[in-house]
């Protein structure tokens, strides 16, 4: 087994989410948090009146990416729950906004990060919450196994 798979192994410690593949996942989340926050900051500051709903949605998405980054990097029991909820919200957001933007393009004259299922961002916004949930499940299973080990001892 490679040393990188340590985090997802059966004896993963509480901070397991930020090791192994999770480290790369958090890097992608951090990148999206940075870019989405910067982008929506500029949009809200300079052109909020033009398209308030898409711009507020962009800001909401940015907040989700930032929270997910922190929650995954912390990796405690409670932030694990928070990260799961955020990933589900993101998935719901990208599917709902993606569908609406496909059916009624005029609803989103200005593209948001979730328009067209994240097509403007290489569909990473669609992929990210799925990978997040898969990773939370894999690493979570490892952490629960470790907790049971401790109790058994």
């Amino acid at each position, binding site marked *: 087994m*490679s*040393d990188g798979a*340590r985090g997802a192994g059966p004896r993963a410690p509480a901070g397991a989410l930020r*090791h192994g593949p999770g*480290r*790369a996942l958090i*890097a*992608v989340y*951090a990148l999206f948090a940075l870019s989405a926050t910067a982008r929506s900051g500029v949009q809200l500051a*300079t052109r909020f009146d033009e398209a308030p709903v898409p711009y507020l949605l962009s800001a909401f998405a940015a907040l989700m990416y930032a929270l997910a980054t922190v929650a995954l990097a912390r990796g405690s029991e409670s932030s694990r729950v928070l990260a799961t909820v955020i990933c589900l919200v993101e998935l719901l957001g990208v599917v709902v906004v993606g569908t609406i933007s496909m059916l009624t393009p005029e609803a989103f004259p200005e593209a948001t990060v979730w328009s067209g299922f994240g097509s403007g961002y290489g569909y990473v916004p669609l992929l990210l919450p799925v990978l997040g949930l898969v990773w939370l499940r894999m690493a979570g299973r490892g952490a629960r196994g470790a907790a049971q080990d401790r109790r058994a001892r």
Partner: protein
Amino acid sequence: MPEYLPTVLVFAALIAAGWTLIGLLRDRGPDRILLGALALIEVGLLAQAVLGIAGLAGAEREVASVTFVGYLLGILLVLPIAAAWALAERSRWGNAVLLVGCLAIPVMIVRLQQVWDGQGV
């Protein structure tokens, strides 16, 4: 802003991305050659920021200056943060983190060029 510098930086970042991918597939942590190359790219990005901001002052047309400067400065954060995050774990996944950082550079430079050319904001 000189035309060649962003192009050189895009190719350098893509080559570095390929290097991290090789490390990732060979199950190695980030090596010194890569870190040296990333340091050089960072110097290039710093030069791009200086030249870009100087060029903005002399621009004859309308450029979305807040966005442009935001990209010029924001791109400087990517590699140092990625390197710090990657080196805390010297496994293949350190290379995966740097791969993410290296791929972000060309994307941001392309966006930077679009903003400079007046497309989008």
